């Protein structure tokens, strides 16, 4: 029987609000889009490259606004850049976002204006280089807490977020292209959705009792919404989306909505995991009984 | 016992924990398992109101098992004294002592006197109705030795045998049945106490209002005094009976402003009777033996302090002009007068009767009959705001526009805003200095009374009225300082401590007081607090730089004596009882040791007083209890206590149980307000409506709040710690009454009904008393209608039956009913209470016969 103090939580729930799961989405979208854009350029698909570039830059522009809005003292956002601190994923991520966002928006502006091509290429390259870190570091960010459902999923989360980012980037690009140009994007979206789904299943299985929050409350609702929307959207992309512009747009939007829901599911799961003390206490108590705990010094 | 020290004296309690750490057994005997119990080595859950049964059982255990400290008892107590043959014990008269006058509802104590002696009280034939006598003033003993004694303690009428007889039925089984404790627990206490007393070890009792707030309150303490005398624990280090007072300086407030019938230092206020002159007055108060023998010196010095040169031998120190007390003028008596419209005005200083006094509702109604009321306090307490915000306003019983009373609220300074002293439970005066100026109109008490006095004097300066003469003669020229014209607190302390009128030199102690006008002293027991011109109360030498008595930290009255009666820490020959418990001892020339000896410093242990000796000289060298006429501690109290020479188990005024020892159920001498419509009583066993109030009710304090709440419910940091009025009930009571943990309950008596949140806890235990299970409802009494955290007042439920010696209410044990849900509001509240009363006997029939009181 897990003991607690009047059933009260041991941990504190995160202070983050709606902007954060939305940022997970936009950050992932822009991170993967940078790579998609560069890859498209390398394979000679200029339309896809440009679409992904603009999508990535837009997402990169929205991201900091979301993050700053969530801060308790938004006017002090620049304090994030006072230091470079490897033990703080949020600090590292702020730098990554700065570089990727700066690069992608520079490239987008230069593309629009059609000038300074070498600089634009450099910017695109930098954005693509920082894209994958941008898309995956947020997994480390949530895992680097005491929240059991996040910390215990530290192996899967960067991969899940990466896959989700890939799906979002592919799906978003598919919305704005003729299907004949969008093949790689569609494939990326479908592969991303499949990978993300498989990885989520793996994670929940490995989490055991701690993972049950994904089957309860808001986390469960978002989780199902994610499966339905992303799954349905991927199916649509893979079938009618290959011929119909409309179906591609719808399918792409559904995948994006689904992946946004996926981020919300993970976000909400963290709150639920903090709220019930058993998730914190039980595994620790079992470990302490099994291996002996140094946290408690018993009399000799 | 009768104390929740950890919660109400947390700072002092650290020393109890210190003792516990060194292996002391800390036993907590209390109806509730409190934060003190949590720290104790043992908790014994006793039924509220049954302590004398328990303690009497301990006395019986000691006597039956011969565990009393023989040498101590024989020499230091009045155990050998033979009592007159008219004396009848409660064992003889079924719960009454001899001398009971049912007409007057009081005892005539002549039959209690020592054989061959008159009691002092009869000299001067003074009416003792309501009079607070401070026992030990006399007994008219010659040589300080009682005429009749049996040193072998075998005479059937010697105190020792009478004691044995009185408690012989207080067996462990009786204790168990009456108190709801197991025989095992009771014997544990007895064994612990007796094993830890004697030459090598001492035990201490600690009590507070859990003992005093009963209709037999004084007798509770008396029983402990008997135990401590039998075990030889009085006047010894680690022994004694420690009275924990309830406020930082309530000891000081009884020492100096005192009570309605005493003057500073517990000198008696003269009564409105013809003593036959000043000398007779002195004689009726003087004790021929003991330190009260110097009564004249204390009296005269006080008069000189008040009136300066206006008081002289020629005018008997203005004795004839002094105001006189007519009878009882205690708080509840005054309340009754208020309700009858006989009190014009009232000044409340730092007190909140609208919340803090028993039958608080009656107090609020009483205020509404005054012409004027002055309230001095830190915040606008309920006693200042009742006229627009109170349960009576809510119910319509009082209407603001119809209340004639003019209420003046005058803000008072906090202790940080003035110089002054606190006198604590150890009789220690500790000085403090002002840290900051008071805000706005807030003023200190010294400022208020000084300037009030000045204005009154000025208004009466030209008066020809006889009654104004004394005011005109009052010496009132204290120096002031600061822009506020604050009177000098240290000057006043110096006057309290006494000085020579000619030279102004501060006195060293009360032994230097004279009766010829050459000394002035505001309070004889405080004499010497300014010894050598130094504010002794302001000394701050830390305890780690001194021995454990720490005489250089502050100053204790009298004479900086830390342990009273410490001559008793040495045996009759003057040697310590043991090396381990050494405190004071005779070194061949004088009494020596780390404390101030509470004895004549040069009187040898083998001193025998000559026939014509008087005052302290009439006390033998081996009789340590020098404030008593015979120099001995009193197991049996021949005079001075109005309800019996021995404590007797009586049930509380309101109780679910009958008295199984005697037909006399409760204290016959207790003060009741017969047929007073404002103080109805819950029915007892056999009376109609008894099933309405089946539970024991007890009130108490919490650490987080202070008494009636003015000082704590107004502070956000304290208000949030205990933010709501609540009751504590056992899971069994909750189940029986349908109460929900965290929900609401209504608690009711024939006085009123209140509501409280419910805290269900195993710390309240059902008790099996006289074969049936009884429950207790616990109520903190801090809440009132105002301030940051507000709620109903527990005292609205309480009756105002009182202890006859000191007029203290019985707020620790009464009866009540309880039901789930919030209470009726407005008119519905009155109707509800009326419906309860209708089911009980309307008026109290004459006592004794029908009520088995």
């Amino acid at each position, binding site marked *: 029987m897990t003991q607690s103090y009047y059933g009260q939580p041991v941990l504190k729930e995160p202070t983050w609000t709606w902007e954060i799961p939305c940022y997970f989405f936009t950050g992932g979208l822009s991170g993967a889009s940078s790579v998609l854009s560069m890859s498209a350029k390398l394979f000679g698909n200029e339309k896809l490259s440009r679409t992904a570039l603009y999508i990535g830059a837009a997402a990169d522009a929205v991201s900091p606004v979301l993050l700053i809005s969530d*801060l308790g003292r938004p006017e002090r956002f620049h*304090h994030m850049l006072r230091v470079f601190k490897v033990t703080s994923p949020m600090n590292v991520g702020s730098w990554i976002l700065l570089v990727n966002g700066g690069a992608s928006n520079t490239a987008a502006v230069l593309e629009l204006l059609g000038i300074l091509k070498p600089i634009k290429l450099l910017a695109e390259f930098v954005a693509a280089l920082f894209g*994958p870190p941008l898309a995956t570091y947020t997994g480390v960010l949530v895992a680097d807490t005491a929240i059991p459902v996040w910390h215990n999923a530290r192996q899967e989360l960067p991969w899940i977020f990466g896959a989700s980012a890939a799906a979002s980037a592919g799906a978003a690009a598919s919305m704005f292209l003729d299907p004949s140009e969008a093949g790689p994007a569609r494939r990326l979206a479908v592969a991303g959705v499949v990978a993300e789904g498989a990885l989520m299943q793996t994670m929940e299985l490995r989490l055991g009792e701690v993972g049950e929050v994904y089957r309860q409350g808001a986390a469960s609702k978002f989780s199902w919404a994610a499966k339905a929307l992303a799954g349905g959207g991927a199916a649509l992309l893979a079938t009618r989306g290959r011929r119909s512009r409309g179906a591609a747009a719808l399918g792409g939007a559904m995948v994006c909505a689904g992946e946004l829901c996926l981020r919300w599911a993970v976000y909400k799961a963290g709150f639920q995991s903090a709220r019930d003390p058993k998730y914190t206490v039980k595994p620790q108590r079992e470990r302490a009984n099994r291996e002996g705990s140094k946290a408690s010094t018993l009399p000799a | 016992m009768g104390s929740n020290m950890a919660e109400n004296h947390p700072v002092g309690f650290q020393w109890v924990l210190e003792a516990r750490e060194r292996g002391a057994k800390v036993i907590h005997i209390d109806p509730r398992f409190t934060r003190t119990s949590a720290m104790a080595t043992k908790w014994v859950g006793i039924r509220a109101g049954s302590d004398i049964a328990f303690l009497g059982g301990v006395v019986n255990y000691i006597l039956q098992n011969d565990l009393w400290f023989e040498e101590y008892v024989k020499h230091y107590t009045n155990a050998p004294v033979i009592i007159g043959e008219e004396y009848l014990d409660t064992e003889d008269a079924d719960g009454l002592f001899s001398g009971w006058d049912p007409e007057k509802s009081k005892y005539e104590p002549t039959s209690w006197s020592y054989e061959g002696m008159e009691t002092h009280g009869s000299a001067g034939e003074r009416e003792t109705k309501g009079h607070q006598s401070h026992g030990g003033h006399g007994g008219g003993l010659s040589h300080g030795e009682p005429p009749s004694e049996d040193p072998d303690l075998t005479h059937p009428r010697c105190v020792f045998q009478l004691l044995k007889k009185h408690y012989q039925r207080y067996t462990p089984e009786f204790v168990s049945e009456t108190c709801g404790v197991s025989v095992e627990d009771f014997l544990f206490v007895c064994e612990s106490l007796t094993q830890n007393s004697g030459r090598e070890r001492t035990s201490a009792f600690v009590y507070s209002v859990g003992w005093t707030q009963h209709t037999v309150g004084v007798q509770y303490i008396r029983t402990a005094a008997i135990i401590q005398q039998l075990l030889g624990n009085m006047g010894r280090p680690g022994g004694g009976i420690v009275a924990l007072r309830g406020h930082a300086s309530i000891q000081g407030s009884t020492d100096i402003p005192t009570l309605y019938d005493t003057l500073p230092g517990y000198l008696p206020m003269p009564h409105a009777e013809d003593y036959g002159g000043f000398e007779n007055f002195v004689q009726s108060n003087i004790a021929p033996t003991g330190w009260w023998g110097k009564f004249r010196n204390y009296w005269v010095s006080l008069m000189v302090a008040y009136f300066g040169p206006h008081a002289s031998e020629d005018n008997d120190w203005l004795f004839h002009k002094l105001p006189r007390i007519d009878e009882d003028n205690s708080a509840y008596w005054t309340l009754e007068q208020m309700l009858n419209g006989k009190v014009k005005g009232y000044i409340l200083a730092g007190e909140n009767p609208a919340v803090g006094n028993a039958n608080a509702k009656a107090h609020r109604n009483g205020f509404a009959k005054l012409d004027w009321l002055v309230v001095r306090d830190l915040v606008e307490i309920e006693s200042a705001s009742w006229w627009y915000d109170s349960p009576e306003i809510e119910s319509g019983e009082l209407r603001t526009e119809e209340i004639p009373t003019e209420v003046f609220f005058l803000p008072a300074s906090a202790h940080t805003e003035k110089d002054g002293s606190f006198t604590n439970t150890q009789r220690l005066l500790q000085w403090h200095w002002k840290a900051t100026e008071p805000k706005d109109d807030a003023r200190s008490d010294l400022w208020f009374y000084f300037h009030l006095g000045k204005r009154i004097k000025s208004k009466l300066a030209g008066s020809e009225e006889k009654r104004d003469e004394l005011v005109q003669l009052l010496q009132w020229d204290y120096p002031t300082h600061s822009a506020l014209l604050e009177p000098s607190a240290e000057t006043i302390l110096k006057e309290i401590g006494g000085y020579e009128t000619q030279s102004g030199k501060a006195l060293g102690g009360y032994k230097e007081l004279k009766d010829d006008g050459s000394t002035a002293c505001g309070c004889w027991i405080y004499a010497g607090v300014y010894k050598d011109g130094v504010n002794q109360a302001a000394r701050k030498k830390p305890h780690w730089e001194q021995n454990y008595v720490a005489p250089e930290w502050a100053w204790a009255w009298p004479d900086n004596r830390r342990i009273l009666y410490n001559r008793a820490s040495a045996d009759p020959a003057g040697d310590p009882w043991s090396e381990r418990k050494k405190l004071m001892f005779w070194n061949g020339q004088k009494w020596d040791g780390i404390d101030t000896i509470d004895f004549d410093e040069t009187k040898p242990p083998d001193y025998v007083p000559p026939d014509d000796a008087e005052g302290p000289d009439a006390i033998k060298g081996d009789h340590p209890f020098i404030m008593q006429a015979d120099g001995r501690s009193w197991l049996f109290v021949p005079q001075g206590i109005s309800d019996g020479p021995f404590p007797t188990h009586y049930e509380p005024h309101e109780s679910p149980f009958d008295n199984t020892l005697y037909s006399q159920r409760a204290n016959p001498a207790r003060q009741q307000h017969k047929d007073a419509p404002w103080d109805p009583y819950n029915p007892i066993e056999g009376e109609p409506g008894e099933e309405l109030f089946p539970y024991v009710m007890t009130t108490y304090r919490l650490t987080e709040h202070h008494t009636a709440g003015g000082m704590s419910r107004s502070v956000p940091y304290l208000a949030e710690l205990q933010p709501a009025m609540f009751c504590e009930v056992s899971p069994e009571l909750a189940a029986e009454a349908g109460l929900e943990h965290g929900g609401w309950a209504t608690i009711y008596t024939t006085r009123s009904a209140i509501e409280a949140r419910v805290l269900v806890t195993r710390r309240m235990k059902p008790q099996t008393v006289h074969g049936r299970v009884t429950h207790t409802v616990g109520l903190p009494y801090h809440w009132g209608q105002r301030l940051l955290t507000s709620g109903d007042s527990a005292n609205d439920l309480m009756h105002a039956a009182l202890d006859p010696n000191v007029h203290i209410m019985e707020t620790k044990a009464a009866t009540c009913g309880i039901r789930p849900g919030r209470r009726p509001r407005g008119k519905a509240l009155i109707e509800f209470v009326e419906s309860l009363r209708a089911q009980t006997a309307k008026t109290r029939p004459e006592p004794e016969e029908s009520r088995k009181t």
Partner: protein
Amino acid sequence: MSVLETSGIDAWGDEKHERMGFFTDTSVCIGCKACEVACKEWNLIPADGQEFLSRSYDNTGELGSETWRHVAFIEQEKPLRADDGSVGLRWLMESDVCKHCTHAACLDVCPTGSLFRTEYGTVVVQQDICNGCGYCVPACPFGVLEKRHMPAPEALPAFLGNKEDGRVWKCTLCYDRLKGGHEPACSHACPTKSIQFGPLDELRERADQRLAKLKHEGWNGAQLYLRDPDDGIGGAGAFFLLLDEPEVYGLPPDPVVTTADLPEMWVNMATAAAVLAVGIVGSFLFGRE
């Protein structure tokens, strides 16, 4: 354990002081809450609001931005000592506080450098730097830190949208009092020396002796919590003597600083990032359509 050494008092050079901390001995706590009040008074912390929680005598609830000392009350039907005999009731009382961990997750994850290690070895939030990102809040394995939602006296004008204080607040171990040569407000106010302040190694020694004494006297459940430098947070600067399992008091039984796993998390992330990149490139290998 974490390879990231965070006991940063070494960084102070000449200003370095020996490490100071708290030993809270709950066996002598009388539940008076003087610590709660003294802390609030000294640090000018706003009152939290009044709510009757019906959790024994605990109406404070938990540590947070407005509560830096919280006294817990637990009523149990268990005797205090093994040989107690009849009643078998005990009432545990404990003054909880920020643990000032040796390996402090809050300090590790703080992105602005607001949280820092003082020359006394304590962990303090610099209120002029904290921008209220809230990362430290879920990082703390004890649930100590919290964002303050109450209005700040110096809050910016409303049009900037910031009416709340928005920063994270916690126990500073009275950093200002230490600099003045005083002990913290709570230990100063504690009447029974339940809260003891001093050099950490001295406190640990004293605690060991205390534990041995309680064992000798037969106290049930006596244990030191977070005393051991080899535990999951490297031992605490503020450690405890408890009379039951930590979770009974609302404390985690075997907390590990999250940063301990961070190195492998970065490596894992790098791999995922690489695979992501490869995967994106790979989606071009099947043609344009």
